[in-house]
């Protein structure tokens, strides 16, 4: 009787396995608590490196263990948060999650697999409370060296969880692979506040720090002026 029950399962199983042999030999891993898939990231990193050659600096400022909120500047359509998160993950050896994935298939689930979080304060708070490094971006601008306003609602997650906030100045070119991600020292609030002013002021300070770091970067210098102008956006 047991053989009879097992028979159709065995037949279907064998036929399917023969057809899907290549797929089944694909390395099988699981994802982490937030849905990030390090194996997929490992597979995609050569592709990412074809587009961006990121030089990373200032990672000594980041905590070795605890959670931290990193804030980068963003130029529209430049995917600053994505390449900076991937590069910082590689440089620090810790997963860096970026904020701002959409919740629509197939892009949303794909971005979740490469470390994306929804742009919700509770989502960021959950990650920070679990001692994760989270990278959010400021509002997008049209200029590579302008830091847009920083969303204080997201910064509130760092205030509530007591996590440090670090600016990350990023710059990439639309015409070359060269990109840069520089982590600045921790931004400490000037005044101690009990209420929501804490995150509003901290967000403004972070924007200010980012702008100062971007000013220090200088413009693109490829030696070909028109390319530099293009890269300036």
């Amino acid at each position: 009787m047991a053989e009879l029950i097992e028979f159709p399962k065995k037949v279907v199983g064998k036929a399917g396995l023969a057809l899907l042999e290549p797929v089944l030999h694909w390395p099988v891993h699981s994802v982490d608590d937030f849905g990030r898939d390090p194996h997929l990231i490992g597979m995609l990193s050569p592709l990412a490196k074809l587009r961006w050659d990121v030089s990373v600096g200032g990672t000594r400022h980041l905590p070795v263990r605890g959670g931290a909120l990193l804030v980068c500047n963003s130029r529209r359509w430049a995917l600053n948060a994505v390449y900076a998160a991937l590069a910082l993950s590689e440089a620090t050896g810790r997963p860096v999650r970026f904020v701002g994935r959409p919740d629509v298939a197939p892009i949303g689930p794909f971005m979740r697999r490469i470390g994306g979080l929804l742009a919700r304060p509770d989502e960021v708070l959950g990650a920070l409370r679990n001692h994760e490094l989270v990278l959010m971006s400021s509002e997008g601008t049209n200029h590579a060296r302008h830091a847009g306003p920083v969303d204080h609602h997201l910064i509130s997650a760092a205030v509530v969880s007591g996590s440090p906030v670090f600016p990350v100045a990023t710059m990439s070119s639309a015409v070359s692979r060269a990109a840069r991600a520089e982590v600045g020292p921790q931004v400490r609030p000037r005044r101690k506040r009990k209420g929501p002013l804490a995150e509003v002021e901290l967000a403004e300070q972070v924007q200010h720090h980012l702008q100062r770091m971007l000013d220090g970067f200088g413009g693109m210098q490829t030696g070909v002026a028109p390319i530099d102008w293009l890269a300036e956006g």
Partner: protein
Amino acid sequence: MGGELGSLIAAQLEAEPWVGALVGIDVDPPRRRLRKAEFHLLQPSQRDRIVDVVTSFNPHVLINVSVWEPDARASLTHARQFTADATKAIVGAAAECPALESMVLRSGLEIYGRERNAATRPTENAPLHPTTEYGKMLANIEQSAREVGRRVGIAVGKLRLAPVLGKHVPSPLGRVLRQPVVPFSMMADAPFAVIEDGDAARAFVAAAAQRLDEPLNIVAPGAITALQAVLRGRRVPLPLVGPEWALARRLSHLFGAPIPDHVVELMHRGRLGDGSRARETLGFEPRLSTPEVIDHLYAWESVVRIGSIREVA
């Protein structure tokens, strides 16, 4: 106490030094040998008998796991009816027990719902917007218990379990994943977490011991997607895009593994939960991670062969 989870909880409670007498009610007899517990075989619809048993025992702690997951042991209509009847009888009886200090309820991560832009990994503070029938059933249970707790002034602990998998646990998710061909959402293939039945039982015992008075997510660490689970189990993955899910659900039902809406939602939108508060509050650490529970799921024999019975002189 007759279901696998109830039997496991009863067996673990019997070993606890703080537990004196133990009484259980279920529609099925216990699946384990219980030495101390007294068992009553009652249907959820027998409200008067249930109230009699509970009030005459007059417990200090009441654990309610009488939740029928749709398509686990009963169809959706029956599951809804049984759960509503059992909740009415047990939670109602709890209010009549003068010695009662605490009530611990079974709930689930389905209660948070997975509408668009809902938190991916909700904490216990996340708003409750159930988007499936099972989620709505759980929300009703929590609401009833909350009201009773407020009225009679008892602690109400709610354990929001990730999908429970175990050797003998009837689970629609477990059944679907163990089929030879398993459908998965090609466009999303979202991650989910689970919990092993033994770990879930330990959480109930810890919550009862501490007279828990808040909701807690009970989730095994790690996560897995449906495709990853299928490949781990060396099953044949069947990628589906959207409209053909209706057909797949019907076919799966025919083959004995119905796929209820909360399992479809799990495959499309994922089901994760932040279980860190359970660690802080109860000191609860699941023994098995999500990928390990899935590996165990595939390691179980689908047909248990028992050798011929020989008479021994």
